[in-house]
């Protein structure tokens, strides 16, 4: 049970990191490199 809670929390932290990254403009930064040679 503890494991499940811990890793569910970790998944939520991951989602938070994704949200934070999107707010910080990571997609644009990534696109700049990913869409050019």
């Amino acid at each position, binding site marked *: 049970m503890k494991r499940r809670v811990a890793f569910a929390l970790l998944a939520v932290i991951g989602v938070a990191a*994704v949200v934070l990254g999107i707010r910080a403009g990571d997609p644009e930064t990534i696109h700049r490199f*990913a869409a050019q040679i």
Partner: protein
Amino acid sequence: MASQPADISTRTRVAVFLSIAGTAVLATLPLKFLGRFDWGVIYYGLASMLGLGLFLALFLGRPTRLNRWLSFVVILLTGAVAAAFLSFGQGMPFVRVLLFGWLPFGLIMLGAVVFVRRRVAPFRVVQISSAVLLNAYIAAYVQNKILYQGIFKYMPEPILNCYGGPLAVFACPIGSTQQMVGMKLLPWLPLGVFIVIGAVVGRAACAWICPFGMWQDLLYKIKVGARAKNNRWISFAVVALITAFIGAALVLFLKLHPLRVFLFAWLPFNLLVLAVAIRGKLDLPRRMWVGGFLAAVGLGAVVWFKFEVGYAVAFGFLGLVLLGLTGRWFAAAFAAVAGFLLGWLGNPAFHVGPLSKLPLGLALAVAAFILVAVLDIVAKASLPSNFLKFGVLLFVAGLASYFTAEPWFCKLCPQGTFGAGIPLVLWDPVNALRGLVGWLYWVKIGILLAFIVAAIAIKRPFCRVICPIGAIYSVFNKGSLLHLKLEPQSCTECSLCRKSCPMDIEPHTGQNQLECIRCGECVSNCPKSGLKFRV
């Protein structure tokens, strides 16, 4: 096969579906609420993932005829829904999406349902589908565009698939991470993707989604050594002949030096093929990381001295696999020869005065010999090969990228060579890329060739020894929500789980270890149903 593999429980089917559906919702909905994507893309992603999840839940284990056709209908319907969202949400012509996306995909699935009678591993079905979907930018060839630059390139995918590839649809997460680290930015988005996927399914993406994993799995199916049906010497002669033609083409069309092509490309590659042909299938050498470390040192030396000796380095890299396949003193001697060639024959000075760089060559030879010998003695009682990938993650993808602002892992990545480097140079729609080919390109080719040969003899060598993404996910493996569980009283130690494992681990002695990629093969192949997926 000694006994029939057991079928899986309904509970596992539901768990698999919920894991995929949950990951899809977690991964896509935040994007909408942040105003990045419109509903068309979100619904497209959700419909595709939910359809895939349902398809899998039905197709898992030994599917009955009803299940197979049901899963086919599910994938067709959800595919049509996804195509509609893509079309109406993204403004792509509906007919074109149907004709070039949904129809060929549906036909492939129909073929699979009709013709594939024996059990096909469910992860293989998804693996092949995702390899196609992640590299589906056919417009590159239709419209003569080099790269896809649309909305999906804003998002990192969860596995290794070079964004420089002309067919690539998403961004590579480790490439993105290195670029951001090089800019002294914290890579929140790729990091978040790694954490979400890792926490929910552990290393499952390596089995179910990664196209480079797929290529390695397929290469391992080539039978070599005593297991080969055909005469191995004939096979070897065919390879030698084909590579000789390729070498001749390099000499004629790219104006490469024939002696160098022979010494640094044809000869080492064919020696390697010969070694694999003789020895057949192998376990992962425990001390392969010695070779990896030597490769890093050798490459560092090349960069430091600015040699234009791509072939020599490629030779060195090819030899590294040989190091792993053979004994330690042979390895040290081989490294000495490679170091000697690197310093002397490979240097441009060879053309003006062969002896001018001889002292440097000898020095490198001695250094390489001592280095391998010492490392090998140290390695005897230390880390096995698969820990090297943490070093690659930390030093190559991490620190080297941070301090030099260059994506060093990408520069050497064999997947990048296969998916981007080779197709772009061969195709070259702008007539400028071939002119950019330098020594680093040949280093990359050498690394790719080494891994191709290694993957024929050893199960997934790249995933187990080098891949930094695999290293990240493996940290989550011990406790991820989806995990493996063994009922000890069921285990008869028949080792069928190990035989079926694409990573060559022993699930009956330890579940959820670093290398488990959650492919489910041990679960399906356990005759006593002792191994199960649990959430």
